């Protein structure tokens, strides 16, 4: 069976392999943080030696959603907020795939917030990158769920009356088993985090700070950041829920005061992934389902033989 031979190839890779050979050139604005995500993802994929054809990158809608237009792999550019349910199912159908989902803060924390909570809760084995630019980019600069309180935009002319959401804390509460924040201004840290996230067996959430020079010139995303994992001032046990939670709370408070803390916040290596849980209770086959359709020797069950007796 040579069905999915791209899966599991172990070859040394160059980051340029993930650049589409022809157009399209990214249509992002000059200086956009989204370039940083693209670069970090290419670096991570190369470091992991992943074949472009064993990767499925699912995105939502927004400037961020164009990621898979400029990253060479299998891609599914879905609809606003819905990258996660599509990515999740693809992983269930074929656990051999490396599945990455991505979208903006509006896409992921706003319209797709429900899917975010549930994907984290279920601990699907996949990586979720949220391009957090604290603004709606593609629709031209409206206030987003991560925009700071008081943020003025054409749709919030008097300044937002809402506190921004706390994505790291939310994700911890929801149940993600790997949680990190990184920033486009440091593609090296970002790359390392993506590598870890993809290698992690469970739902990895990366809140990726991306600057939007076009609509959000004041954002903290430009400010130099502190890597909490390198700084002695921020010692905590990142496998401990409550210590991680405290750090996240502090981080998300100071973020809007202009101090940007990045790094790994929470890693739970113990918790089984959703695939493992489903297999353990007998609700998912051990072999990838998708392979069965290409296996000429597989004996397909018929209702007539299997279930019909119940109705006689």
């Amino acid at each position, binding site marked *: 069976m040579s069905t999915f031979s791209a899966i599991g190839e172990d070859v040394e890779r160059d980051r340029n392999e993930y650049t589409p050979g022809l157009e399209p050139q990214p249509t992002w604005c000059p200086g956009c943080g989204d370039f940083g995500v693209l670069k970090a993802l290419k670096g991570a994929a190369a470091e992991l030696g992943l074949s472009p054809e064993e990767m499925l990158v699912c995105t939502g809608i927004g400037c961020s959603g164009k990621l898979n237009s400029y990253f060479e792999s299998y891609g599914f*550019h879905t609809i606003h907020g*819905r990258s996660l349910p599509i990515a999740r199912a693809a992983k*269930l159908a074929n656990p051999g795939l490396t599945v990455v989902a991505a979208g903006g803060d509006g896409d992921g924390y706003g319209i797709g917030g429900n899917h975010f909570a549930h994907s984290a809760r279920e601990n699907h084995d996949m990586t979720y990158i949220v391009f957090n630019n604290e603004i709606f980019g593609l629709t031209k600069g409206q206030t987003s769920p991560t925009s700071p309180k008081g943020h003025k935009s054409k749709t919030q002319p008097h300044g937002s009356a809402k506190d921004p959401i706390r994505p790291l804390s939310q994700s911890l509460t929801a149940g993600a088993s790997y949680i990190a924040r990184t920033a486009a201004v440091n593609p090296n840290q970002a790359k390392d985090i993506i590598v870890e996230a993809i290698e992690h067996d469970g739902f990895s959430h990366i809140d990726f700070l991306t600057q939007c020079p076009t609509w959000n010139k004041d954002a903290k995303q430009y400010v130099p950041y502190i890597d909490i994992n390198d700084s002695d001032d921020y010692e905590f046990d990142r496998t401990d829920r409550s210590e991680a939670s405290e750090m996240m709370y502090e981080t998300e408070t100071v973020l809007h005061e202009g101090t940007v803390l990045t790094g790994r916040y929470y890693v739970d290596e113990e918790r089984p992934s959703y695939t493992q849980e489903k297999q353990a209770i007998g609700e998912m086959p051990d072999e990838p389902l*998708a392979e069965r359709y290409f296996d000429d020797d597989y004996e397909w069950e018929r209702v007539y033989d299997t279930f019909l007796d119940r109705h006689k």
Partner: protein
Amino acid sequence: MTTDELIWRIAGGSGDGIASTSQNFAKALMRSGLHVFTHRHYPSRIRGGHTYTEVRVSADPIRSRGDGYNFLLALGDSFARNPKEGAYYGNEEVKPLAENLDDLRDGGVIVYDSGLLDTDDIPDFDERVEEHGWHVYDIDLRSIAREHGREVMRNTAGVAVTCAIAGIEPQAIKSLMDDTMPEKVFEPNMSVFDDAYDVVTEEYDADAPDVSVPTGSHDEEQVLISGSDAIAYGALDEGCRFIAGYPMTPWTEVFTIMSQNLPEVGGISEQVEDEIAAAALAIGASHAGVKAMSGSSGGGFALMSEPLGLAEMTETPVVLIEAMRAGPSTGMPTKTEQGDLEHVLYTSQGDSHRVVFAPADAEEAYRQTRRAFRIAYEYQLPSIILYDQKNGGELQNVPASVFDEEPNPDLGSVLTEAELADAPHDASGKFNRFQYDVEGDVSPRSIPGQEGGRYLATGNEHMPAGHISEDPENRVNQVNRRMSKMDTIRKELDGDDGERNFHYGPADADYGIMTFGSQQGTAAEAVDTLNEAGESVKLLGVSELAPYPVDEVAGFIESVEEVLVVEMNASAQFRGLTQKELGRFGEKLSSLLKYNGNPFEPGEIVEGFRTSIVEDGTLPGHETKFVPAAGD
């Protein structure tokens, strides 16, 4: 009154075991060689409320619930009582009797649980009994049940009484109970059964009523199947191994049956956060190479509008189920209607398309579900099974051989890696998954993980390799290709003879009746009655709605003077669809509509046809409504 059929209505409260008891009763009679058909009526509440199930039994094939009924088993509504003696939730106490008398035929039988119900509470009861010639059996089923087992076994006592009165061989029921009950429960149930049976034969004149069960035999083995069972089984046989859903009545039945059976065949079922996610998961699984489905009822299907469009734009095969109930909004959750036709045909933005099947009964549901998968995967677009609360929950006997079919795990238009190596790629090395100059307008796809199949699927308009593009020429080419798939499918479904739907009655009839989906069997019975009474009518039951069978329907309408379009909604959606698709015939089509939450009975269609078409009169209008032809 007739004795060639029994229509047995068991009434009580939700939670009283009405559904399981009637199911066993129907199955026992099917095993003894009869044809059976059940009809469910239940309220949107968990306990109490007025619930009944009818089991129609005949020596000949049956296609509907029939008109009225001739045997009432009224159980007390034990769950509607709260623990304080005598107190009821709401005013349910006499309903199992009082609510059910209107449709009981003359000469029919009433058995009621005198341990829980009192006829003194019903005004005019004795007068009505007298007037209609009903035979009344007041039997304290509760005491019999308590004495030999537990109070919940009142059902068994009631079934035993039915057997004694209607002349049903007790062994038929007993052996089925033996098959389905654990021994500890079976023994006391048998005692209850025997005692209740003896009470009738010893204390009552069981020969008096003119109600008895016919005898019959089947040529081949039968199974008792609901529309929901049949949809689930069609999906399984067609190789569907992934379902994602969110509960909503009445779609929950299909979802439940799939969830219970899928693990056994190594498939995956996911109950997810909402219906948008559900449809999106089905799309994700299908994209990754698994046959997948999702579904809902009206409100949940509304949420699926967006993923539905995505499936069309990305040409991802998917099968969605829509189980209609009365709307708009949450409407009447447990009541049937055919009001989501336009919703299902037209929801989602842009020039979007889907294939829509509307099975009439369990057998069609099985076949059409299989076809829906085959079309979806061959042509890479969404297919929808549109059915309703009525045919989802009806049980009927179907020859077991209907299901004796080969499985079909074929993913349709998917290339192997060897084929991908020879397939066209763009200069970047991406596979041209969305080419437009392809045969049959279907551009074959690859599955993530396949070597040489890399592409971008996107809900934006895109070039052959998937790159997002607003290039006008590419846009027109892609739209034309996606749209013309519907024409190809129409040709395939039309087949050689062009008769893909259900034709019934004399070909040269003067008048026509047209209907779709679950009303087909009822309308067929009405056509029989009308023709026996000297009218000249034929039926066209349309169960493939999109692409619409234009030529077949036009031929039917042309061949008659006038057509009565029968459907369960208030805005004549099927008639509207027919006129839109055919672009004419406004003056030939009149409508008979029903939208009170209950399906048509054959007699209502007979009456509607006579009054409105033959006599040119007006219907009384409270149950069914007549809307004349546009030319009138």
